[in-house]
C-alpha cells in the first residue's frame, strides 16, 4: 500500500542523517553523564549544618576551582570569626542577587585589622587606586532562570521559627555547601533544574514553570 502511494516517496538522505543525529546524541549524552559522574561526589563534600524544619538537599557536586584576584578566606570570616553571611552579602535578603560586598565594606575593618597580610595589602592597594577587584563568577545560572535570594531567605530563615537569624549560614549552605570551610568559594551543589525541583517538591515550593522561567 505504501509502495503505491506516490506521496510517500523515500527520502534518500534520511538514513545517513538519522545515523549522524543518533551518534551525535549519544556522544553528547555520554559526555554529560561522564561529567556528572566526575562531579557528583556525594561523599567528598561535607553538606554543611542542616536547617531545622526543612527537607535538606543531600546532593553534592565538585565544581572546578575558580581562582580569584584576592585569595579571600570564607573560613576566617564566616567560620573562625562567625561573621553572619548577610553582614557582607547584605543584598541577599533584599534582592535577586546576594551581591559581592562593596570594597568600602572590606575597608571598614581592614584599615585596622590584619593590615600586615599580603592579601590585605593587595586589597588596600586596589582601594587606594579606586579599582574594584575583578572577581570571577562561581555560582552562575543560565540567563533564562530567575532565581531570587530574597524569597528563599524569607522562606527558610526569616519565616522559620526554629532557626535563629544568626545561623543564616545553614540556609546558605542548602545551595552553596559549607562555604564556612572554604577559602574562595567553590560550587558544591549541582544547581541544575533537577536539584531545584527535588528541593521544591520536598519543601512544597512552587512548581509553576513561570516562577523561575520568565
Amino acid at each position, binding site marked *: 500500500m505504501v509502495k503505491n502511494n506516490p506521496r510517500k516517496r*523515500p527520502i534518500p538522505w534520511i538514513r545517513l542523517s538519522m545515523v549522524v543525529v543518533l551518534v551525535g546524541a549519544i556522544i553528547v549524552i555520554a559526555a554529560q553523564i561522564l561529567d556528572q559522574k566526575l562531579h557528583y561526589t556525594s561523599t567528598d563534600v561535607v553538606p554543611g549544618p542542616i536547617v531545622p524544619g526543612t527537607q535538606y538537599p543531600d546532593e553534592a557536586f565538585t*565544581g572546578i576551582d575558580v581562582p580569584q584576584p584576592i585569595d579571600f578566606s570564607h573560613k576566617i570570616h564566616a567560620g573562625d570569626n562567625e561573621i553572619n553571611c548577610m553582614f557582607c552579602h547584605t543584598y541577599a535578603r533584599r534582592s535577586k542577587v546576594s551581591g559581592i560586598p562593596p570594597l568600602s565594606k572590606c575597608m571598614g575593618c581592614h584599615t585596622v585589622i590584619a593590615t600586615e597580610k599580603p592579601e590585605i595589602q593587595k586589597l588596600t592597594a586596589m582601594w587606594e587606586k579606586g579599582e574594584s577587584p575583578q*572577581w570571577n*563568577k*562561581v555560582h*552562575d545560572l543560565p540567563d533564562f532562570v530567575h532565581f531570587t535570594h530574597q524569597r528563599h531567605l524569607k522562606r527558610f530563615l526569616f519565616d522559620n521559627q526554629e532557626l535563629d537569624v544568626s545561623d543564616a549560614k545553614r540556609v546558605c549552605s542548602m545551595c552553596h555547601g559549607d562555604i564556612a570551610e572554604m577559602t574562595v568559594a567553590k560550587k558544591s551543589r549541582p544547581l541544575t533544574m533537577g536539584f531545584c525541583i527535588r528541593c521544591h517538591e520536598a519543601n512544597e515550593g512552587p512548581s509553576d514553570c513561570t516562577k523561575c522561567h520568565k
Partner: protein
Amino acid sequence: MNQSKLDRRQFLKGLGLGGAGVALAGCDLPSYVTLEQGEENVISYLAPNEYVIPGVGVWYASTCVGCSAGCGIHGRVREGRVLKLEGNPDSGVNMGRLCQMGQAALQHHFNPDRIANPMVRKNGALVEASWDEAIALINEKSKSGKAAWVTGTISGHQRVMAQTHLGAIGGSRHYAVEQINANVWKTACKDIINDPNPEIHLEKAKVIFSLGADFLGTFISPVHFAASYAEFRTPPRGTLIQAEPAMSLTGGNADHWVGIKPGSETALALGVANALMNNHGVAGNGISNATKTLINKHDPETVAGICAVPVGRIEKIAASLAANSPSLVLAGGSATGNANGYSAAAAALMLNQMLGNIGTTITAGRELAYPQLDLVEGNSANLKDLAIDANEGKIDVLFVSGANPLFLAPKSLKMLEGWNKVGFKVVLSSMLDETAEAADVVLPLASSLEDWGSHIPSYAKGTRNLALQQPLMEPVFPNTRGFGDVVLALAKDAGAPGLDDYDDYYGYLRSAISALKKTDSEKEWNGFLMAGQTQIPSLGRKLSYSDGKITPTMNDSDDGNLTLIASARMGMWDGRGANLPWLQESPDQISKVVWDSWAELHPKTAKSLGIKDGDYINIKSASGEVTTRAFIYKGIHPGAIAVPIGRGHSALGRYAKDNGVNPLSILNGASDSKTGEIATTATKVSVKSAGKNKQMAKLMEIDRQHGRKLVATISADKQRRTEGGA
C-alpha cells in the same frame, strides 16, 4: 521504495521521542553552553550609594525627545544601566503611556554605531580628532561669515543656548526643520481662530470627522490623543470618520474610512458644509458671504465628481455631524500635504464654526509667560528656505543638530549643491547620518538618556509645564558631551555675555530654573527632577473666528499617472527611527511589513498595470526614481501610490543603511501656497514593473480571518444601524 522503510512521519516520531529523552535527562545536566562559571567577572562597587541594591531597579524621571510631543518618561536603572523606559503617570502629555519610539530610545542610547569621538575633515575625509582640536577649528572659523543654525523642533533652555550662540557668532537665521509637523493646521488655527495651538477635546466629541489628521500616529501629540481617543470610544461610543487617500493608523481605526482622491479634501469639506446648510438647516453663523457662495457652488453631486466619493456618503457624513453635537473636524497629514493644504485646514475650521464646535471641542490654549523658552516648531518650509539660501550663498557657517536636512530634502531642492556651497559645516550628532557624513566637523553628542535639558511639550492641556530631562546613566561612550555643554562652551568662546558663571550646562540649567521658579532650595530642585517637570506661568488665550481663504482648486492633470503619497508613520517617523532594530522589526501598523519599504497600490490599479503583490516596481517622478516592492490592498485611492517615509538611508548606521527607499527624494518640490510646507501628496509618478518578484517579510500574510473569529465582527449593515451614525 527500496531504499528505506522510514517515511517522513516515522522520522518525525523518532526525532520527537529522542528530543523528549534528551530533554528529560537534561534536567540534571549542567548546561555548558550558557553557564559563565569562572569565565565572567562580577565587579563589586567601591562604595555604593545607600539606595543602590544590585538586582533592584530605581526609576528616574526624564523627558522623551523622540518627537516634539515631550512625553514624560520613567527609566528603570539597575547596576548603573538604564534598562527600560515607561511613561511618567504624572505627565499631562502622556499620562503614563509611551509609544514605540519612546520605548526604543534605549536602542539609540546603546547603539553600536554611535559616534564615539569628534571628527574633522582632512584631505576630504572625516578623521577622528580631539575635542580641543575640533573646538579650536570651530572657534577659528565660526566668525568667518554669515552663520546659521539648523535644528529640529527645539524649546526650553536648549533653544536659549543655541540662539545665544548664534547671536555671539553674528548669525541671524535659525532654520527649525521637521518633516512631520502640523504647521499647516497650526498656521490656519492662528489665522482663523487666533490661537496656533488650541486644545482639542476628542473625548468631548460625539463624532470626529478627520481630514487626513493621523492623530493616533503622527499628529502633534499622538500619545496624548490616543488617550483622549480611548475616552471618546468608551460608551456612549463616538463615531470616527476619516477621509484620506491612503489609510493611516487613525484611518484603520475609523468607523467610516473614505478613500478620497488626493488633494480633494477641501472640496469634500465644502460638500459636507453644503449638505449641512441645505439639508439640515445649519445656519453658518460667522461664515462670510464669500465663503457661503463658495459652499453653494459645491453641492454634493459636484463634490462627488471631484473627490470620487459617492454622493450618499457625503450626505451621510453631513447627517451624522448635524445629528451629533458636539462634533470635531480636524485636518492634517495627507489633507494638508498638498499645494492647497492650507485651504483644507481652513475648511475644517469653517466646519467647526458652522457646527458650533469652537469653544466646546476646540478651546483656547495657554500661552507661556516666557516666550523665549517656547517651542521653535520645525517645519519643512524651513527646509526649503535652507536649500534656497545655501544655494544663493547666504550661508557661510552652518551649525546643525537634531535635524537631517540632506536626507529629508527632495532632490529637486538641490540641497546637496547648496550644502557644498556653505564654507564650514559643523554637525552635533550622536549618529553619523547623511548630514553628519557631509560635515567639516562632527561633534559626538551624548544620547538623550545621558543629557540635561528642558523642554516645552508641543501640546498641552490646562497648565503649562517645563519638562525636565536628566541623565539616567553615565555616558556609554565616554568621549561624548551633552548638547547644552557643547553649545555653552562654544557660546562662551564666541564671547556671549553672562555665561562666565557656568562651568557646565547643568549649572546653567539649574540656575535658570531656580530663577524661573524663584527658589534656590536643593530640596525643591530634587522635587522637580523627581517629578520630571515643573509648572511655569502661562496666560489664557481667547478664541475668535474669522474665515480663512479657501481655494478648492486642484492643479490636477488627469494624465493617467498616479499621485505619490509619501506617508508618515509612527515608528520610522522622518527617518530617525531607522537605526533602531526594535522599530524596524515592529510590523507597520497597516501593511505589517518589517525591515523594508513598500508601495501601497489599489488592486484595480495594480491589475491595470499588471503588477502583483511583491513585484518590484519602478516609481518615477520628474526628479528621480525609486524601486521597491508593491503591496496590494484596498485602503488606498485607486489613483494614488503610497510609499512610507523613513527608510532609504545612505548612512545612519548598520541597521538603517541601504534598507528600503526614501520617497521624499523624488518629490517634485511643490509646496503649500500659504505656509510653504513641502507637499508630500502632490507629485505625479509613473509606475511600472521592474520584472522581479520576491515575497515581502510581513507579519500577517492575509487580511481575512477564514471564519476563525480572531476579531469579533458584525456586518456593515448592522453596524450602520447600531453604532455608526453616518
